[in-house]
């Protein structure tokens, strides 16, 4: 309801008056296509708007259309004739679209606009499926931090990301050395949807502008091994052969775990600036989109797995094997 109302006002703003657009409530409403509400088969909003838009031209016909529909053999009377609802009601009428001069019909012609209360009385509540489908129109990622800050869902997503960064003790606040440059940070927003297209998660990720890094200054080596699809298949084939189960695990914000060996300064994240803002942050752990982030994460994971008693195969960097446990480093590959 809220969405439709919103669309209605927007639609009336940028359209020439009197021309309806789909998905607005302010549809032209020829009397001879109206269904009797008591039969209960009022069409849903979407198709209703569409069909009315198509047949809107029928309204150009003069007052004769009302007798005409009677002659079609239908016996129902329209529940709200134009005269009844616009003149008979005493309360202030709230228009979904302000009437133009042409539509102020004192001469008995069909009214070309309906009030919001008319529509609300006759619109059946949509099921959730349809509603969420319509909502997708408005559920895209914001393009700037300022925009994101206005929405609760995105603010929460950003706070969650900041929290996991702080838990990791990713950075220390410090002053910039004279010969150092700080790298900018930015937010990346993503709407996660399930296969049916429903929004399941709002995700905000703080990333470094890794493209501004200079080799030899901000990073040295960037190579990080990733698993080949063949390796994954061999692994699964082996698991099937042995009748083992394969479990799926995920390290949250994996790259934030990587320890940095280089000294990297970043600016404060937009929207979360502490103090006067001239301080910079000295990174201890990696951030997403840093050039060396995948390598740092891989080195860390490698170390931890070896410590747990996994054995690295000499020719396969990404398979580590411990007795009875078969584990593949999914985390290396799922970067986002």
């Amino acid at each position, binding site marked *: 309801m809220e969405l439709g109302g919103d669309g209605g006002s927007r639609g009336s703003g940028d359209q020439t008056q009197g021309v309806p657009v789909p998905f607005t409530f302010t549809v032209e409403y020829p009397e001879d296509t109206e269904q009797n509400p008591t039969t209960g088969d009022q069409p849903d909003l979407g198709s209703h708007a569409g069909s009315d838009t198509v047949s809107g031209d029928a309204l150009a016909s003069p007052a004769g259309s009302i007798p005409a529909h009677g002659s079609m053999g239908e016996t129902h009377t329209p529940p709200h004739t134009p005269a009844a609802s616009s003149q008979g009601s005493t309360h202030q009428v709230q228009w979904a679209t302000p009437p133009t001069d042409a539509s102020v019909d004192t001469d008995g012609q069909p009214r070309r606009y309906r009030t919001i209360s008319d529509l609300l009385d006759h619109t059946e509540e949509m099921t959730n499926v349809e509603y969420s489908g319509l909502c997708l129109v408005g559920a895209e990622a914001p393009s700037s931090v300022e925009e994101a800050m206005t929405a609760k869902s995105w603010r929460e997503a950003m706070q969650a990301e900041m929290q*996991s960064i702080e*838990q990791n003790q990713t950075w220390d606040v410090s002053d910039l050395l004279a010969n150092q440059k700080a790298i900018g940070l930015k937010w990346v927003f993503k709407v996660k949807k399930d*296969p049916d297209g429903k929004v399941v998660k709002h995700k905000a990720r703080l990333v470094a502008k890794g493209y501004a890094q200079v080799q030899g200054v901000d990073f040295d080596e960037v190579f990080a091994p990733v698993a080949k*699809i*063949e390796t*994954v*298949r*061999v692994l*699964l*084939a*082996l*698991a*099937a*052969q*042995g*009748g083992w*189960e*394969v*479990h*799926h*695990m*995920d*390290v*949250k*914000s*994996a790259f934030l*775990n990587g320890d940095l060996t280089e000294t990297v300064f970043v600016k404060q994240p937009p929207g979360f600036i502490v103090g006067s803002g001239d301080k910079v942050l000295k990174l201890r752990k990696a951030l997403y989109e840093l050039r060396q982030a995948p390598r740092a994460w891989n080195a860390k994971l490698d170390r*931890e*797995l070896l410590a*747990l008693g996994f054995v690295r195969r000499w020719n396969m960097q990404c398979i580590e094997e411990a007795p009875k446990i078969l584990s593949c480093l*999914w985390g290396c*590959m*799922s970067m986002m």
Partner: protein
Amino acid sequence: MQKKFNMSDLGLLSYYLGIEVKQDADGITLSQSAYAKKILESAGMWNCNPSATPMEAWLKLYKRVEDEVVRPTEYRSIIGSLRYIVNTRPDLAYSVGVVSTFMETPCQAHWGAVKQILRYLKATVDYGCRYESGAALKPFLLGYSDSDFAGDIVDRKSTTGIVYFLGNNLVTWSSQKQKIVTLSSCEAEYVAGAAAA
């Protein structure tokens, strides 16, 4: 490990990198049917007539300099999607490899071949790799290689086909045009065998 990192256990592996993984008592099945459906939909081939083969036998495609180039960007996009689906579909490896060689200047004839692949895909969306358990067997690695001879009628290069089995399970495959021109089918087979090794 869970102590070291903030981790979530997603249970039995069921969906990974677009590959659906089904695990049951007898083995593991990999398929990409959701991805295949997505390709068909985005290519507008969802309602096409299914076909029983991915490519016509003895079809010889070649680069046509005189023909008009048709929608190259879309062609490359579809090929890119098809190349990913070969990850669980060895039956598509050769035909996708062939149409990939015309990504630079796709003509109507090449589009026809791509559409044939898509129609075959439509008939076989649920195909995938099945890995059977065989606990009694010690898994051994077994590889096969084959080659055609001068399959490309323009540059006379041959195409290598390689499959590797681990026990009874097909784990890796490739279909690749050879880098050199061979002068006999025997030589082409040698090249394929060397590539497999």
